[in-house]
């Protein structure tokens, strides 16, 4: 079903909306940069200290940057009524959720993945850890977008859902963050990082397979 014309149209529409003025594209990236700039002020500029905590900081920063734009996934479509049309469109709502999560990943997760090695340099991330950072972010960020879409779907009808969204979504991010940072840490220490990466891939696949159903159910409840 990936070739469904309605899904492709929805993906293109969401990408266009996100990249046009006011779409918030690049905001997550700027936030990620600010986090990576502030950390050395907090912990001191010593290179050995920074390179030790860099894997964790980069992963937490990416996670928070992703969180920043989550409420946009459904909120605007809910306000102007497009979400009602999507729910009655000749395409399963589960598919629409998956497409919107994918659009969020392409506009938020993918730029983070591509920029992460640069920010790793700021934090003195050892060079041999960079491929692991890239791979673990590439595997892990789709799960962040998908779980975020679930949180956004739950809170879409609420007037002040932003803070609640963070409270609901952050505990769900624990396994992804844990395996992601562990993979980079092992890569930095020159150890084998296959195991955490495989676990992380398993969590992402599980999330992508099951969460669209839960998120679509939540949207149907909110649209009643």
């Amino acid at each position, binding site marked *: 079903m990936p070739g469904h014309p309605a899904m492709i149209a929805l993906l293109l529409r969401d990408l266009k909306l996100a990249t046009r003025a006011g779409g918030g594209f690049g905001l997550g990236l700027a936030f990620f940069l600010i986090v990576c700039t502030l950390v050395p002020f907090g912990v001191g500029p010593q290179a050995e200290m920074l390179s030790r905590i860099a894997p964790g900081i980069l992963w937490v920063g990416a996670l928070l940057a992703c969180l920043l734009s989550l409420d946009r996934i459904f909120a605007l479509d809910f306000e102007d009524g497009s979400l009602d049309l999507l729910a009655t469109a000749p395409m399963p709502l589960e598919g629409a959720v998956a497409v919107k999560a994918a659009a969020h990943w392409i506009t938020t997760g993918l730029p983070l993945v591509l920029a992460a090695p640069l920010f790793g340099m700021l934090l003195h991330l050892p060079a041999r850890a960079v491929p692991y950072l890239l791979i673990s972010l590439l595997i892990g960020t789709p799960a962040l977008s998908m779980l975020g879409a679930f949180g956004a779907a*739950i809170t879409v*009808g609420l007037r002040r859902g932003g803070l609640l969204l963070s409270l609901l979504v952050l505990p769900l991010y624990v396994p992804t963050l844990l395996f992601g940072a562990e993979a980079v840490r092992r890569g930095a220490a020159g150890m084998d990082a296959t195991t955490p990466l495989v676990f992380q891939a398993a969590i992402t696949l599980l999330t992508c397979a099951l969460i669209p159903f839960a998120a679509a159910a939540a949207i149907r409840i909110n649209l009643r």
Partner: protein
Amino acid sequence: MSIWEYANPVKFMRISGAALPWVVAGAAICTLAGLIWGFLTPPDYKQGASVKIMFLHVPAAMMAINCWLMMLVASLIWIIRRHHVSALAAKAAAPIGAAMTLIALVTGAAWGQPTWGTWWEWDPRLTSFLILFLFYLGYIALWEAVENPDSAADLTGVLCLVGSVFAILSRYAVNFWNQGLHQGASLSVASGERMSAVYRYPLYLCMVGLFLLFLSLLLIRTRTEIRIRRTAALQAREGRP
């Protein structure tokens, strides 16, 4: 006669009202007797008197997990069979479970200080309890945030299902991340390394006591929720806001 008859609020109110005094009395007797008995046990040869924290810590930790399981079952019953009492019971259980989690964390910190020399350690068991506490907070906050009661029940039900999967994932993921100080299970039936009977029997009594305490709080809170729902229905019928 099927079990679903008790999902009728009138029947539930009648039966729970009749059972409540007995459950409360049982909870008071078992908890008090268990804690006093536990307090009078001899000090452990290694941990000294601090081992007595166990009589509150272990049952509270058990109830913290079992309460989430009960919420999961109640959410499933609500989602599948649409029994309102079930949804209200899940709502009523959440703050009790959060309190039990907090008791387990606080008593654990008080026990960890003399035994391990630290109030907090990022140990898998401790960490997963902290995550469980966050799940409770999110669940309670979602109930509070949604105005329509049926939507709130549905959304929290979905959250409970997804949260359960991720709570279990987190529980086993943190094993991978840190080895930890917390000991394993000491009460398994098959293992030969059980704790001495001196400690085991008061502990069993405390477990029964805290279970009955949970049950009595759950019944009281569910009855309150049903009455709130009835009041709202009466007010709506009379046209008052």
